Structure formats: structure tokens, C-alpha cells
């Protein structure tokens, strides 16, 4: 296990937190405008990358 795994765990939580903030900002309908959709897409891609790194670090 490495510092990288710890960093990635926090990074992933922070990315999820940004997604949570987006849900708050758009409550109750959660209908995204173009900018919010773009932001959600970027965050979800980051999250996938972070989870991918975590898999590599934790399951190697």
C-alpha cells in the first residue's frame, strides 16, 4: 500500500463531494444546464480515473 493509494482515496471522496455540491445546487429537479452537464462529465471521468488508480494500488 502506498501514499498514492491514500491520496487517491481522498481525491475520489473530494470528487464525489463536488458531485454532491452539484446535486445541492440543482435540487430538487437535478436538471443540468450545459455547463453543469460538462462539469458532471468531467468529475465522473476524474472519479473513474481515481478509482482505476485505487484498484491498481490496492489490488496489485
Amino acid at each position, binding site marked *: 500500500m502506498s501514499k498514492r493509494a491514500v491520496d487517491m482515496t481522498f481525491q475520489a471522496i*473530494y470528487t464525489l*463531494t463536488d458531485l*454532491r*455540491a452539484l446535486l445541492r*445546487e*440543482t*435540487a430538487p*429537479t437535478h436538471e443540468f444546464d450545459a455547463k453543469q452537464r460538462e462539469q458532471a462529465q468531467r468529475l465522473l471521468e476524474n472519479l473513474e480515473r481515481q478509482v482505476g488508480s485505487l484498484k491498481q494500488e490496492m489490488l496489485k
Partner: protein
Amino acid sequence: MRCGQGIEARQVDELFINIDPIQAGGRLTADAMKAVVAYGDGYSVCDNCRKPNRLDYIAKPPIAEFHKDLATWLNMDAVRTVPGARRGFQAVAHTYVKKGDPVLLTSLSHYTEFLAVEESGGIAREIPANGQKLVTPDAAAEKIEAVKKEFSRAPVLAFIDHVDYQYGNMHDVAGIAKVCRQYDVPIVYNGAYTVGILPVDGKAMGVDFVVGSGHKSMAAPAPSGILAATAEREKEVFRTTAITGDVTNRTFGIKEPEMMGCTLMGVTLVGMMASFPHVKERTKHFDKELANHQLVMDALLSIAGTTCLSEYPRKHTMTRINTVESFDRIAETHKKRGYYLQSALEERGITGVIPGATKVWKFNTYGTTRKQAEHLARSFVEIARENGLSVKG
């Protein structure tokens, strides 16, 4: 979904527009939520505590720097973080009020100001609000004169709420402070609904202390708050310990008795710090918050029989509304009685109005986006129309 045994995960602000009057300004920023994750452990901010071993001296995380920035932002000389505004009131009252001393409050003061006075043995004397529910400098002067007649001396302290919790009205603190200074009465500015919401300049208002609430208005976890003082008052309220143990001969460095040593540790403080840059920025855009609030007010006031009990036009986003002649008339015959309004709001993804309230209630739109404010406005009008109330326009 649970976040612990028997503890339901709270998702109120993710699923609803929350217009609870006291919750709006305390919603965490994303950065504060991240800080909560990183600093949740009890003594988390103490990893790098070095001599002189006091919270406000810690450089990593940058707590010392935060204290300086906070004082500058409020235009005061010193600041401490405290576990809620009430602990700020308590520290000041305990410093200045002795048994039997008269203390000036107002007829709209928060109960914790009264309790702080009571704990120190003081006697409460209230400046009455006028017919518009406003506390004026003239009324303050009259009350001080009345206190002088009754006690043969002026009050030893005055607590003035800039925006009161009952009506969300904005009172002339600068004018009242000017009067208090003429009688040498130190003044505590209660900024529970202003510090973190709109610009606050302590020295421009001429106050001795500024108290703010972290969990009410600074997007910080509870319990948190701030107490700021002028250079003159700093030496008094933030005096350092002088006690010595007779057996051990121990002394306690620069710990401050009114703060009981270190105050906000861990998640409350770091949450407040993480939100601070966002909070500073948002106070510059209070006009946008008022514009969103007005949108909702226009909708509510378009419903025949609805009146605003707070001062109008609004200067704050928390408002007391009277729907006795509108929504409450429906409650008389509705199968859900008074709960129909809350139920109809929740169906539209809106929460925060007291369940069952259809007569007089408060709400706060602070922090809503334009789209959310439009949704609120539309929803109130829809509910009114669906229930046969007349709507103008």
C-alpha cells in the same frame, strides 16, 4: 441509507430546496465538506501545535493566519473562534457584568443574550422596538436614561442584533452604538444573521465587539462562531490566565480564561476556514440574494390575503410572513389540515417550513440559485391556485 447504526444519512439539501430560516447560511461549501472528511478526528488540528500552545497560534493548518484574516475582514483588531455565537455573548457578559448590573438588550434580542446576562447576575433591560419592529437610536437613548434613573448608573453593556431572528429586520446599529458611546456603554454587535452573509465593518459601526455564528451564517459545522474585539476591549475579554496552583505552583501560559483555553478544535474550525474564502466572496453579492428573495416575496404577496410582517422592502433574506388570510383559510377545511402546505411544498421538492404552520411563519432563501428561487415562487403560486386562492397577475 444509513451512516451509522440507527443514523439515517441526511440528504435534505441534496433532495430539496431548504428554506429553513436558520439553516440557509450555514450550509457547508464543498470545500468545508472536504475539510470535514480530512479533519474529523478529535484533535486533528493539534498535530503541529507548538509553544505557546494555543489554538490561534497554530501555523499548520493555517489557523493563526485565519484569525488575522478574519479580524481584518471584520475591521476589528482581534478575533477568537468560539463554539457558537452564544459563547461569544457569554465571554463578554462574564467579563463586564457583575451581580445586579443593568444590561441593555432589545425586545427582539435572542434568548442566548438574556442567558449570558443572567449567568453573570445581570439585570436585563430591553429597548422596545417600534411599531415597525425596528429598534432605533432614540429608543436606545430613552432606555439608557430610564436605566440611569432606576439604577443611578448607565448599563454596563449593550447587546444589539443587527438583523433580529424574529423578523429579519435590519436595525440601525451604528446609530445605536453612537448613543451608547455617549454613555460609555460597551456594545456587542450580534451578527448571527449578518457575519458571513453581508459585509460587516465593526469599526465603521463603532462597536466594541462583533459576534458571528459559524453554523448559522458562515457555512461552517456546528457549533461554531466568532468573537471579535477592538484593541481596547481585546485586553479585557481576551485577558490571559494569572492563576497558580498552591501545591504544584503550576501556571498556564497564555491560555485565556474566557475562552477556557483552546476553543474550536478539529472539524468545526477547519470547516469554517475552508468556507472562509467563499464566504468572503459571497458577502459581496448580497444584492443577488436579495433579488432572488424578492422574486419569492413577489409571488407570496401576489396571493390575496398574504402580508409581510417584516420590514418591507426587504433588506435580508429571512422573512416573517402572515398567511392567516390565505393559506390558513384552506387549512380550516383541508383533509390534511395545516399540514397540507408542508405536504404540497415537499411534493415540489421544498422543505424548511415548520410542519403544520399556515398562519405566521419564517423562511430564508439565502444561497438559492435563480432557478431555485423561480421554482419556489412558482410553487407557492401553484399551491395557492390549486387550493382556490386568488392570485394577482
